């Protein structure tokens, strides 16, 4: 027990010393909340209709997300007409005043992102445009930030032979998601979250998938450092090492998410309802997110691979869970996509902000419990790289 605490304390101390926990766990998600909030805040005012001319290179999977998101604004209270044009037209329409904003996604956009380069999308405003054009720019900006947050780790993929396949899969998931699901921003039918609440919950859920990596994925880092072998040679059961990493992740996840939800609700004026119910939800969702990391730690050979896998999982679950845009639609696919910590966070907070208590969270909690158990069982069953693990 004392040794368990020694290991957890060392992990947490390490995270406090290392800035990336603060950057990826707190600062970036909070900044994104602010950006998105800025984007959605004016929705309460009357906005003028605006036409956006968007050019996307043929077959560019991530680029294709841009017009989809912008079209989504139309349903969210801002009348937007999106015209898909080629690059030259995007510029000329803005110059001739036919479109308020021109957005040009360059050739090789997806490839560039995957190679770890910062995305460069050109946004041009027509003369005399107002708040509406700023909203469009803000949305594009926010989207680029989302893409970039994964890009740092995705960059590592370049060095790894096996990964283009994995990345291709990500790209496919993104584009398949785009066609199979109608993205609609704003409030979803049965949840009580305000647009601001949706943003806060979505971002908190999405970044949780990065935060919980700081503990468990440390197993992979320590395997590379060789310190894992040393830990396993210490006079203590080997599961204690694994447990300590899990608990570190859990603590970091709970702290970061609690801070984000609190800060989010204060700054963006969101009421999530009963603190007790929110706390219970938080524990369940963080446990589920942590359990995914064990699976990654088991499969990944290197810390770089683990980072890539984590980014892929976070973006996929984030999209499916509606961290970026509310996912509408119904049926099987939609149901499956709800079995996901990001979705559970939004759905659960919807329940609590609508006045629901712990009991009303039942289905969400149960889903997360099953999810956690399934992930842990799977990672337990997978053949390990080392016997002791």
């Amino acid at each position, binding site marked *: 027990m*004392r*040794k368990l605490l*020694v*290991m957890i304390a*060392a992990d947490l101390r*390490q995270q406090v*010393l*290392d800035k990336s926990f603060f950057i990826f766990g707190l600062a970036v998600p909070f900044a994104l909340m602010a950006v998105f909030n800025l984007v959605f805040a004016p929705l309460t005012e009357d906005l003028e209709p605006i036409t956006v001319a968007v050019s996307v290179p043929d077959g560019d999977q991530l680029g294709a997300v841009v017009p989809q998101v912008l079209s989504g604004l139309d349903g969210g209270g801002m009348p937007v007409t999106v015209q898909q044009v080629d690059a030259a037209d995007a510029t000329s329409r803005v110059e001739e005043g036919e479109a308020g904003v021109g957005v040009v996604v360059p050739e090789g956009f997806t490839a560039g992102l995957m190679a770890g380069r910062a995305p460069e999308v050109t946004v041009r405003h027509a003369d005399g445009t107002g708040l509406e054009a700023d909203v469009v720019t803000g949305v594009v900006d926010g989207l680029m930030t989302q893409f970039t947050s994964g890009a740092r780790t995705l960059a590592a993929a370049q060095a790894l032979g096996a990964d283009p396949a994995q990345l291709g899969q990500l790209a496919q998931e993104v584009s398949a998601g785009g066609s199979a699901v109608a993205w609609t921003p704003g409030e979803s039918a049965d949840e009580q979250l305000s647009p601001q609440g949706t943003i806060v919950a979505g971002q908190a859920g999405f970044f949780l998938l990065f935060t919980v990596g700081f503990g468990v994925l440390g197993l992979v880092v320590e395997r590379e*450092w*060789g*310190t894992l*072998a*040393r*830990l*396993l*040679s*210490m*006079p*203590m*059961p080997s599961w204690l090492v694994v447990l300590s990493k899990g608990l570190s992740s859990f603590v970091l996840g709970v702290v970061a998410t609690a801070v984000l939800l609190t800060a989010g609700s204060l700054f963006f004026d969101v009421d999530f309802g009963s603190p007790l119910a929110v706390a219970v939800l938080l524990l369940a969702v963080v446990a589920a997110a942590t359990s995914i990391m064990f699976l990654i730690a088991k499969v990944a050979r290197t810390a770089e691979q683990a980072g890539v896998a984590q980014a892929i999982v976070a973006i996929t679950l984030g999209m499916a869970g509606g961290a970026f845009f509310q996912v509408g639609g119904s049926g099987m696919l939609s149901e499956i996509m709800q079995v996901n910590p990001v979705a559970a966070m939004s759905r659960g907070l919807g329940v609590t902000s609508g006045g629901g208590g712990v009991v009303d969270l039942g289905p969400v909690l149960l889903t997360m419990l099953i999810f956690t158990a399934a992930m842990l069982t799977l990672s337990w069953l997978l053949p390990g790289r*080392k*016997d*002791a693990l």
Partner: protein
Amino acid sequence: MTTTTAPVLDADGLARSFGSLTAVDGVTFQIRPGETYGLLGPNGAGKTTTISMIAGLLRPDAGSVTVAGVPLGDRPIEAKRHIGLVPQDLAIYPELSARDNLTYFGRLQGLSGSRLRERVGAVLETVGLTDRAKGASKKFSGGMKRRLNIGIGLLHEPRLLILDEPTVGVDPQSRHAILESVEALSTEGMAVLYTTHYMEEAERLCDRIGIIDAGSLQAEGTRDELVDLIGGTDTVTLAGTGDLEAAERALADLAAVEQVHRDRGALRLAVKGAPRAISGIVNATAGAGMTLSDVEISRPDLEAVFLHLTGKALRD
């Protein structure tokens, strides 16, 4: 029934495969207190795999390990208490200082309070890092990192210290320091298991050497026993004055002496098992009226032994 001569380590029939590759195949050996045992073998011989099984990191497919009388398979935690492992790859936290690395692992070894502080101080002294105890270890030179890596294995004063190729990639000065501290430790009664593919290190440090190749021990013994094993001939050079011709004839009659050459003021002999034959040789020269001024024996080295046993050179 732990007496002083009971082995600290008893490895019995250890075997381990990875898929279809048999990495270790029935390795058996023992190490007594104060004894340094060398596992000498080329890359991929199975040294690290053997050590991993002994340190409880890898489950053997067959065989058993007993450390200080405690069976590792049945009571792993208790057995591990007696083991200090120095892994082949560096196993230190780069962000932490030498002192923090030692303190952390010391706690996990179950040390605390003043005893922990005392041991950390003592180990820093042993590995010569007292002056550099504070800075992050990632800024250390390769040799300093290696020394810290070794220090962590010494913290809890284990009965058995396992060193897996501790001098690989180390500058001559650090290497010298490492070899000296290993010698000092075994004098204090620690049993040391030392793997290397450097023949000179095995010769210098180890009381007994196990030659391992392709997962099995090819031979085991002291350096002299191993050399005798291959039945190689030693070269004995006798320098002196007096009747060298008579000495030459007398020596040629000795059973152990295979050849004698006279070379100005010296006799050069090819001898089977020189350590045992040397007194007879010296007596024979005296009897023939030769006064010796210098005797030199040179034996085949472990390199030759390895070549003989495996048909390949130790270093590739």
